[in-house]
């Protein structure tokens, strides 16, 4: 296990190195000094408390999505539906907050509106996740496909929602909901910044995941991913595993939907998910499915986005969208790590070989280039076929 871990960290380190090289090359290409760019990036995330706060605000949704994806990814259930689940969670949270506020005559206290938003968001996201889980269990519909496509459905539903039953009465350029009641908003954790109390929720979830990681249920999911029969023996049936892991990720994404509305935007916007769902998958894998790694990776992702703006103003020539390119390189690297996570043996050594300490690996795949040399011996074999065996 330890040597496998070392391999994984090596892989992660090389991904990070590749990112640095590509980023440096791009900055040079844009006609700027990479060191100046780096300085701008660092200043962009640390020069004022507000900027630090922005990094934290950006890291919260990514972190929650990534943390709650751990069980699914550990079990090999590859759900990419967080985007849609965030949207549905945001819609249900917003709708519920308005409805309850109305019930209290427009003066509902925070103590009511916060849990209502949290629970409604979680319920919306969870329900959105159970649909592909049901399809996967009942008809074996590939969960990658169904969750991906349901994201578009959710986006369409959000657009319709913002033009109809949740639309703001004001005249606005873009479709959006009315502003949430003051009492529903998450207060700032650090004064003078947008960093809200949702940060504490990330820590709570990270600790819960850390504890869960050592539980029997976590082991069962690991077994489920690669050893279906053994998993059955441990009680991890397909339906139980798919439903529970997808539900957890859906609940997390739904909560993120609520947090983005109540903590960041104060209203439901068309851009509520903003790619956070996909970043969450990347961050979960980059963080090695470990809580601490994920929190760090989420901060890194968020800082990259915030810092790129600083880089743009420092160099003047490097566009802030360099962050997207860097994320792209990261995602490719993460895909390699994902392949490794799914089946370490496939990357480190060929599957099925006898991988003993005293009997090292047989590489089974041969390059086809050596083919022609066998022609004479093939002839021998063909003759052997005709000659017949020893009686």
């Amino acid at each position, binding site marked *: 296990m330890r040597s496998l871990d070392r391999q994984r960290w090596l892989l992660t380190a090389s991904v990070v190195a590749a990112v640095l090289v590509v980023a440096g090359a791009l900055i040079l290409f844009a006609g700027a000094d990479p060191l100046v760019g780096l300085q701008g990036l660092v200043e962009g995330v640390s020069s004022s408390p507000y900027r630090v706060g922005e990094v934290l605000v950006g890291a919260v949704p990514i972190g929650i999505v990534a943390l709650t994806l751990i069980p699914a990814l550990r079990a090999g259930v590859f759900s990419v539906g967080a985007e849609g689940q965030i949207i549905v969670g945001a819609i249900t949270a917003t709708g519920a907050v308005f409805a309850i506020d109305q019930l209290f005559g427009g003066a509902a206290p925070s103590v009511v509106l916060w849990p209502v938003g949290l629970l409604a968001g979680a319920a919306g996201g969870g329900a959105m996740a159970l649909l592909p889980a049901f399809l996967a269990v009942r008809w074996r519909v590939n969960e990658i496909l169904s969750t991906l496509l349901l994201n578009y459905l959710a986006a369409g539903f959000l657009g319709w929602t913002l033009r109809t039953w949740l639309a703001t009465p004001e005249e606005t350029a873009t479709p959006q909901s009315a502003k949430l009641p003051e009492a529903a908003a998450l207060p700032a954790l650090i004064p003078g910044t947008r960093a809200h109390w949702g940060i504490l929720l990330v820590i709570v979830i990270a600790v819960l995941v850390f504890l869960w990681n050592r539980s029997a*249920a976590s082991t069962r999911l*690991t077994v489920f991913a690669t050893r279906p029969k053994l998993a059955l023996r441990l009680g991890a049936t397909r339906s139980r595993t798919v439903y529970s892991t997808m539900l957890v990720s859906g609940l997390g994404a739904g909560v993120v939907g609520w947090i983005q509305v109540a903590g960041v935007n104060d209203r439901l916007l068309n851009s509520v998910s903003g790619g956070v769902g996909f970043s969450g998958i990347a961050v979960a894998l980059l963080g090695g499915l470990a809580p601490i790694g994920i929190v760090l990776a989420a901060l890194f992702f968020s800082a990259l986005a915030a810092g790129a703006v600083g880089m743009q103003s420092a160099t003047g020539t490097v566009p802030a969208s360099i962050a997207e390119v860097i994320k792209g390189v990261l995602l490719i690297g993460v895909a390699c790590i994902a392949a490794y996570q799914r089946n370490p043996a496939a990357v480190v050594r060929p599957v099925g070989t*006898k991988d003993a300490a005293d009997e090292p690996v047989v590489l089974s795949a041969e390059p086809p280039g050596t*083919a*022609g040399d066998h022609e004479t011996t*093939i002839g021998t*074999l063909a003759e052997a076929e005709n000659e017949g065996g020893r009686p």
Partner: protein
Amino acid sequence: MTVSPQEMDRVVEARSISKSFGPVAALRDVSMVVRPGAVHALVGENGAGKSTLAKVLAGIERPSSGTMTLDGAVYAPRDRSEAKRRGINMVPQQLSLVGELSLVENYLLVGPRRLANRRSARALLAETLSRARVEVDLDVPTASLTQAHRQLGEIVVALAEGAHTLILDEPTASLGPLEVGGLFEHLRALCDLGTAVVLITHRLDEVRQVADDLTVLSHGEGVHNGSAAGLASGEIARLMVGELPPPVARVPRALGGVVLSARGLVAGSTRDTRLDDVDLEVRSGEILGIAGVAGSGQNLLLDVLGGFVEPEQGTVTLDGGAPGASAVALLNAGLAWIPEERSEALVPGLSLRDNLNLYSTAVGAVSTERTLPHITADLQAFDVRPARPELAAAGLSGGNQQKLLAARELGALPEPRAVLAYGPTQGLDQRAAQAIRGRLIDQAAAGAAVVVASHDLEEVLAVADRIVVMFGGRVVADLPAADATTDRIGRAMAGLADDTPPADKDLP
């Protein structure tokens, strides 16, 4: 056809080969001469260095010291493809076929370009198959074949690839008697044309049956090197292991009530023959052997008994419990499980300790987590080497993984009520196999109902009190061990009804 002088000269000679992995010396000063046109058996216990020596020959490992010559010229292959180019090819024990591709497609991947044509490749493979007198479906993905058929396919592809020296690492480990016979016939045919075959094996009867030359390794040293003729099995065994443990004594056990019963099972699977109305009863204290050629339905039957596959008709009951219990319910009721492919039951990335403790993570677990001293004791009791609890299971050799699996199912599980084992001693040397058999008998003596299935008849005969034979998904014979002569069982395995001449029946 006679052997040409060139072919006669194709001698592979290894002199004073040593190989160390870190501080571990796997081979010490071993010499070996592989003659063309002969089958050279390479035997030894688990970890004696057979595979390492074979890998040195095949260019997969480089020796730490020593020299090799091929046809008098220096032979020091840098890698496997160089060895292949020079005509030395090894078929690994574990499968290297691409599961998604058929055998024909697998062959097209590695075969010569001249034959990069589906039809001619298929024709060549089909011909190779018919010589070996086995039937393997050439056109379905190899993953859907049974293990025996995949192993066989692997050998067929390697044969078709062509090599003057063919190294087979335990090719017969998962083959039935008829298939082994067919394979050996094919090997002899190749030998007659000057091909050299190095056969790594555990089965001493195979040495007598097919080998011309013999090298015996013991703890990395060559203890016999020469002709195989005139050596009795017992003598070879003594060379290999020093001294054999006494055979398992047959102590009659008192049989109790029925513990495991199956009624009217009908089930289907893509990996095995359909079960067609199978009834089975195993009593407390009884060891039931299930014999049959590979792919006769034994695997599927064990899957149904273990709760992994739900039968279309019929029921399974364990210890008077509710019929149709789930796999986890059966585990918690005390069902031990050793599947044909040990990889199904072990998690390579987890440590030996976590693998042994795995059942404490089951839903509603009855097993509790064992402490480190217990784990160490378990590993030692089953002779798992190295007995390091924190080592990942992937770090063990195949034989030691098998011992680890046995340690969990037969040692760590609290009082099994029933044991399902398919080929529990596969890949083990005599001593380790004997130890596992002893454990199975101990479990029976403690009141468990034990089922041992295998396509290796010896494995079944070694422990079973009663033997049922499966053929084509049905139970075709049910005999007490005393009446189970090799002849009667062999006929039943071939699908021949008892006491009818084998005239017009087709062999499987």
